[in-house]
């Protein structure tokens, strides 16, 4: 009885020690991880605003970035304000149901409600069709109004993927409905 108890105590002590060590390591690594994830996000944003940045500028040097939690299919909204020109833009991280899984997109909108850019983050749909969507272009005209993207986008070339396509459409729709709330100016 006593032996069993002391074995349990040994286990307990070990557990506490291990827990303490883990906590220690976590305090060291968690800021690094958080920083890394932030950098990742900023890097994704930089893709949209490449023309505004000179070669070694970071996005935070030129824009004030504000992160807002979204609602519904919109997961996160990044509001960017140009530090000198005061122009505003918004980048939406949005997801909608495609074929079986979600289509995750980043959609950037400028202050005049035109589409600045879009990118596929992960793919919905089956592997083959989904993979073709990464980096796909939707044949949208330059500076098209965000309201028009919903009808105007092109199904991904070469694949007729109506269901995944409807996911893409839903993404644009979500942004189109939301955009005026964030950027104003109707």
């Amino acid at each position, binding site marked *: 009885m006593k032996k069993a108890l002391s074995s349990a105590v040994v286990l307990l002590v070990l557990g506490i020690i291990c827990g303490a060590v883990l906590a220690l390591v976590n305090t060291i690594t968690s800021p690094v991880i958080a920083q890394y994830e932030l950098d990742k996000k900023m890097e994704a944003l930089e893709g949209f605003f490449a023309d505004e940045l000179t070669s070694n500028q970071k996005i935070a040097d030129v824009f004030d970035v504000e992160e807002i939690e979204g609602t519904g299919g919109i997961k996160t909204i990044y509001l960017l304000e140009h530090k000198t020109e005061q122009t505003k833009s918004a980048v939406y991280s949005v997801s909608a149901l495609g074929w079986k899984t979600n289509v995750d997109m980043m959609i950037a909108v400028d202050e005049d409600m035109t589409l600045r850019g879009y990118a596929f983050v992960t793919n919905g749909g089956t592997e083959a069709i989904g993979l073709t969507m990464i980096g796909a272009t939707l*044949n949208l*005209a330059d500076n098209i109004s965000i309201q028009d993207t919903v009808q105007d986008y*092109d*199904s991904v*070339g070469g694949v*007729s993927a109506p269901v995944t396509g409807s996911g893409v459409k839903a993404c644009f729709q979500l942004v189109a409905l939301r955009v*005026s*709330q964030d*950027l*104003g*100016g*109707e």
Partner: protein
Amino acid sequence: MKVFFGKHGFILILVAIFVLIFGLGGVYSRFMTSELEEHIEENATGAEYALYLEMFPGADTLTPYTPGEVSKTYPLAGGRGDFAPTVDKALKILQGTSEKGVVYVINTKGKEPMKVGVGISLENDACVGIAVLEQNDTPDYFSQLGDPFYSQFDAKALSDLALAVDTFAGVTYSSKAFEIALFYARELYAADYDFVIPTVAMTLVKLEYNFDPTTFIASPYIANIIYGDQDTEAAVMLSASFDYVGLVGGGTDLEADFQAAVKALAQGAGTLNTQASFVSFDEENNTLVMQTKGYNPNAIQASIVLNDTLDIVVSITFVSMETYANQGGYGDYTGGPAPAVENNLRNQYLADGDPNVDGVAGATVSSNAVRSLLQLLDGFVEAQNGGE
């Protein structure tokens, strides 16, 4: 060494044979693949040429030649700027030794670059067929273009004044590509052979709104033109899409060629703001209904009551507005709940009578829409004044 070969000679020979076969076989199969590519290419050219020969019954040979240089630009569908088509190659179609026609292969552009061959018959200066060689447009749309569309190119006379390609509903971009190709082929044909592109002598003097309340719903625009060899002057009523409706005050209609020319000229003029338009006019109550398009696809409608002589605005009421129920729909505009923007601008106008009202900050699109409505209304009122 000798011991090594004695022990492993057999496997070395086997491996050597293996490597030899791999090498020789690889060379052979590469040779085969390159030969195949040649065959495929031969076949592709053959198929393409067969397509052209099919356009000209009885033709048997074709010879490539260098066409004259023509540079022209055409506007693309959807307001995407101008596009300068180029000629890829030109082929003379021969029957025996006599020339039957010519085929121009033209790089044009629908939604995406497209390559089409346009066949023109020398006998009657008419387009006899069109062949799509390459296209990258959205398959769903492009496939809607079927025989009814392509059959319009059979025997389409190039001397037709109103030469145009009938747009297939919903496939405007691709349809426009064919029109560009056809026009450009006509230019090339005119440069290469003694063919003169028909023109209509007509100048557009003035294009303005129709403020006559009895006709402005059917034909909201009036164009003053000078046309014909005798420089006849005329005022022509045009529909909302600039189609010819009739002459102001009646009279003999213009000939079809001139009708088409008026439309083209008016469309190209671009001097009118078409955002706002008249909807109806109630003579008994002197009530005018107008509409304008703002940010929302549903139009803003306003009902305007005028005095008896129609030259003073009594009141403006908005029948329908931007449908945003909360002020969030106006972005960061903070002047109160909807329809604050419309009302704000209306009040400005009613106060000083100047239609160039100041826009409401943060609601630019709606403001523009309402402003253009007010400007049109002002024009109407002034026209009635001048009429008296």
